[in-house]
């Protein structure tokens, strides 16, 4: 199985290293033919406005959107979650998302960089104790449709905000497992989503 990591901008190298730690050789992809050929795709952390604009400028936007809607397994972290949402609250002008998850996301939901944090999270479907999660100017899920499964949440002012979600083959986290060195989230994507989609 060929797992691509979208390499337009962001921390795609850390995702490639995370895949390697799971025994999977990932491919950095940023051209039409490269993206057409992968069996699964990771959309990395980065600046979601930049990634969205580059995808449009280089004619990749429809391709990625169509491949997601036709069932390709896909995982997005942080900016990747924003790009997989149905709707973005307060998007930058010209910022669109690929869709795939029936969620509404709030960008920079926890605040500015000085509010960025790391924390331990209980993650449904991942065993062996809490996952170390690094949130950097992170989004959260503001609301979601009935088919979206919540895998992890964060409490802020007594309100629970989903930060890891899945709908079929589409999976997203607000945080960056590729930065924390906790490779169980990538392993979840490979074992629970990619491998099962192949059968």
């Amino acid at each position, binding site marked *: 199985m060929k797992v691509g990591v979208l390499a337009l901008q962001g921390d*795609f190298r850390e995702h490639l290293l995370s895949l390697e730690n799971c025994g999977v050789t990932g491919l950095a992809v940023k051209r039409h033919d490269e993206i057409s050929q992968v069996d699964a795709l990771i959309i990395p952390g980065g*600046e979601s406005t930049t990634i969205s*604009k580059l995808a449009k400028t280089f004619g990749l936007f429809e391709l990625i959107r169509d491949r997601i809607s036709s069932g390709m397994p896909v995982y997005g972290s942080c900016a990747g979650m924003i790009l997989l949402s149905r709707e973005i609250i307060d998007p930058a002008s010209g910022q669109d998302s690929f869709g795939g998850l029936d969620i509404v996301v709030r960008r920079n939901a926890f605040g500015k*960089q*000085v509010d960025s944090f790391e924390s331990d999270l209980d993650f449904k479907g991942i065993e062996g104790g809490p996952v170390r999660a690094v949130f950097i*100017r992170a989004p959260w899920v503001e609301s979601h449709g009935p088919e979206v499964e919540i895998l992890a949440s964060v*409490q802020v002012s007594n309100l629970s905000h989903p930060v890891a979600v899945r709908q079929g083959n589409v999976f997203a986290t607000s945080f960056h497992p590729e930065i*924390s060195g906790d490779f169980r989230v990538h392993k979840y994507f490979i074992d629970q989503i990619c491998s099962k989609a192949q059968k």
Partner: protein
Amino acid sequence: MSQNSSNEVGTARVKRGMAEMLKGGVIMDVVNVEQAKIAEDAGAVAVMALERVPADIRAQGGVSRMSDPDMIEAIQAAVSIPVMAKVRIGHFAEAQVIESLKVDYIDESEVLTPADYEHHIDKWKFTIPFVCGATNLGEALRRINEGAAMIRSKGEAGTGDVSNATTHMRKIGSEIRRLTSMREDELYVAAKELQAPYALVKEVAATGKLPVVLFTAGGIATPADAAMMMQLGADGVFVGSGIFKSGDPAKRAAAVVKATTYYTDPKIVADASRGLGEAMVGINVADIPVPHRLAERGW
């Protein structure tokens, strides 16, 4: 905002991780809301809010300081991408002010007039992350030892002459490669020669890279400049005067973004270079008397 007590802010991972998210991107100097919006529309990953771009600082002379908080806050309100701001080398009170504005990153910058000719800011004390300039590996590691979470080459800001950025990127790269080829018992002397902490020297020798993200800055004015810096090992690009001192800033900004992503594809860099109008006029670094070179500031 009250969060779980187990949440940790301002850790090295959170600070350095922020820079990881900027990789492969272009950070643009902007002096007002209109320019900030142009930068965001063009695909910048962040903007640097300042009152005068380096070319004007150079032309106008005088003491150059932190920007007006009103101006910085107006830019924060206008864009959703990260906003950075500069403070003078060693001026920790300016840094406290910028942190209180909830700016996303501080550039402790030689482009402003230094406030302390001996000490840089103790950056570990802050929750906000810092980027610092460096001309060589030893300088980069000294800044990281003080808590910098991101490094950029200094280049020679405000000139449109990329030669110093090239020198600094090549120097940092070659010094890293030299360390990786050394025996372990040679690293003690290497640390002495680099005037850098042994632990960081050992880490670089083992990993073959800086422990933080390395951007390039200083004199980048064209898509091809950006592509060259990326090929020399930069993780991303700062463009200061190069965009808004040119004939068609919106088009040039978008062009530099494209070239930074597809830096190994000369056809895309060629297309990005077409019809950009006038580039910033530029000054040859060799024509600037040494005491007026910004890259010499910081140590």
